């Protein structure tokens, strides 16, 4: 990652520290924990019309009282954080050098929706005194910091479907610049309420056939998922000194805005293309060094076409294998970038690119190399992971192997 871009160093001044990913925690409809999650990603189809985590039991992760005080999105995020910490092993870090950076699209929507009904039906004096701490978008990062006693930076990024990616970027920069040694970073989302579902359906972003099939000619929208993903980011030297397993290095990241439309991507994916280029510059590499693209690929008409155009613009005629994990996972909104970054780490780990589940006939208007059907061996090179959010928020992570 670059620390700064200056007149005398337009190519960027290298940040003093490298950022390793040393722990993975995931809660998703296809599995909780990295093993079940990976198994689910390898399937060629996921015919389920919903992506809910039916078997999630908060009492596995917190006391009865804590669970009553935490919205479901917060419970998910805490579970993912605990899984990531457990996966990373003993961190041996000064709590003042450890922080939390989470992303979410909306925060505690389930609680808010329930309490709105209660207030209207039974009067405002029935509204729980915990409404505010349960609904606020930053509640998850706050709860995680309290759980582990981490007192470094604790913030929340709220950039819709790019939030998970941006949270990881922001946290990684704190470590790269020496402000923190360890960060728990990721995203959590449970926005599958009747009202939010209707909002997406009525704007025709949600699939009416109930099939998530990114880049397919028959795609007709996304399937909303509830999910959470958290990674342990750690200064590389610290990780090596304690003998940690290193999944990947966060080599660079990009973030920009379309400044175009509140829901539609910029025509021809021009903003997304710039975002990928910013990320490559931040990593100090060229597009030729990318071996695989973990796409945003939501299964909407607009996203998939403009993202494909953006990829074409950045990579030219070179065909880089692209997969969208949203065929399997659905769209986890603010959690999506985090669980997909975890998918990319596991792609390195297993040397396999998961297929874009459910996609059978790639749209002839889309001229990129989409991995479908069965997993494919991972070529040499870095992996980039894209996320694009309503509002025109773009985010790209560059992940590379640790050659140690």
């Amino acid at each position, binding site marked *: 990652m670059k620390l700064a871009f200056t007149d005398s160093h337009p190519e960027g001044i290298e940040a003093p520290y490298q950022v390793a990913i040393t722990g993975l925690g995931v809660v998703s409809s296809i599995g909780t924990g990295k093993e079940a999650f990976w198994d689910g990603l390898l399937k060629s189809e996921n015919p389920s019309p919903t992506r809910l985590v039916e078997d999630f039991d908060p009492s596995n992760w917190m*006391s*009865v*009282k*804590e*669970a*009553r005080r935490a919205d479901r999105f917060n419970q998910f995020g805490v579970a993912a954080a605990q899984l990531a910490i457990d996966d990373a092993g003993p961190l041996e870090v000064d709590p003042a050098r450890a922080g939390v950076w989470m992303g979410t699209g909306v925060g505690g929507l389930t609680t808010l929706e329930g309490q709105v009904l209660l207030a209207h039906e039974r009067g405002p*004096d*029935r509204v*729980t*005194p*915990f409404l505010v701490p349960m609904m606020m978008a930053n509640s998850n990062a706050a709860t995680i910091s309290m759980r582990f006693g981490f007192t470094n930076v604790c913030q929340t990024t709220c950039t819709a479907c790019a939030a998970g990616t941006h949270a990881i970027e922001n946290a990684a920069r704190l470590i790269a610049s020496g402000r923190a040694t360890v960060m728990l970073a990721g995203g959590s989302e449970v926005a599958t309420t009747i009202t939010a579902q209707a909002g997406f359906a009525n704007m025709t972003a949600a699939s009416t056939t109930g099939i998530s099939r990114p880049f397919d000619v028959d795609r007709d929208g996304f399937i909303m998922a509830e999910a959470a993903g958290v990674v342990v980011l750690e200064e590389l030297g610290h990780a090596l000194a304690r003998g940690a397993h290193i999944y990947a290095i966060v080599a660079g990241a990009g973030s920009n805005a379309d400044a175009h439309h509140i829901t539609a991507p910029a025509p021809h994916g021009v903003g997304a293309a710039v975002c990928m280029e910013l990320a490559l510059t931040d990593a100090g590499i060229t597009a030729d060094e990318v071996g695989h693209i973990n796409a945003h690929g939501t299964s909407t008409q607009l996203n998939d076409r403009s993202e494909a155009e953006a990829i074409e613009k950045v990579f030219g005629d070179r065909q880089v294998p692209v997969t969208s994990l949203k065929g399997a996972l659905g769209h986890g909104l603010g959690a999506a970038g985090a669980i997909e970054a975890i998918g990319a780490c596991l792609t390195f780990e297993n040397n396999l690119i998961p297929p874009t589940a459910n996609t059978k006939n790639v749209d002839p208007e889309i001229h990129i190399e989409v991995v479908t059907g069965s997993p494919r061996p991972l070529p040499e090179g870095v992996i980039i992971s894209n996320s694009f959010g309503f509002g025109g928020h773009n985010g790209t992570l560059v992940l590379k192997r640790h050659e140690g």
Partner: protein
Amino acid sequence: MDDAQAFEQFKQCTVKVLGVSPEQVTMEASFAEDLDADSLDIVELVMELEDSFGIKVEESELEGVNTVGAAYELVKGKLA
């Protein structure tokens, strides 16, 4: 409703809201010291008790109510 029934109902509300075990809900138990309840927890417990017993408790009546016994007496006094 006799006294034992009423206290059992009170206990169930307390267990549900505060996440404590039934054995902890004794007359002598202090909300803050023994049941780890802060002021927001008490507000939520009162709302649960109001619903469960069909009563209304004013905020001013909670002044000095620090133990299970004191809270139960307050509730019992409102049962017709």
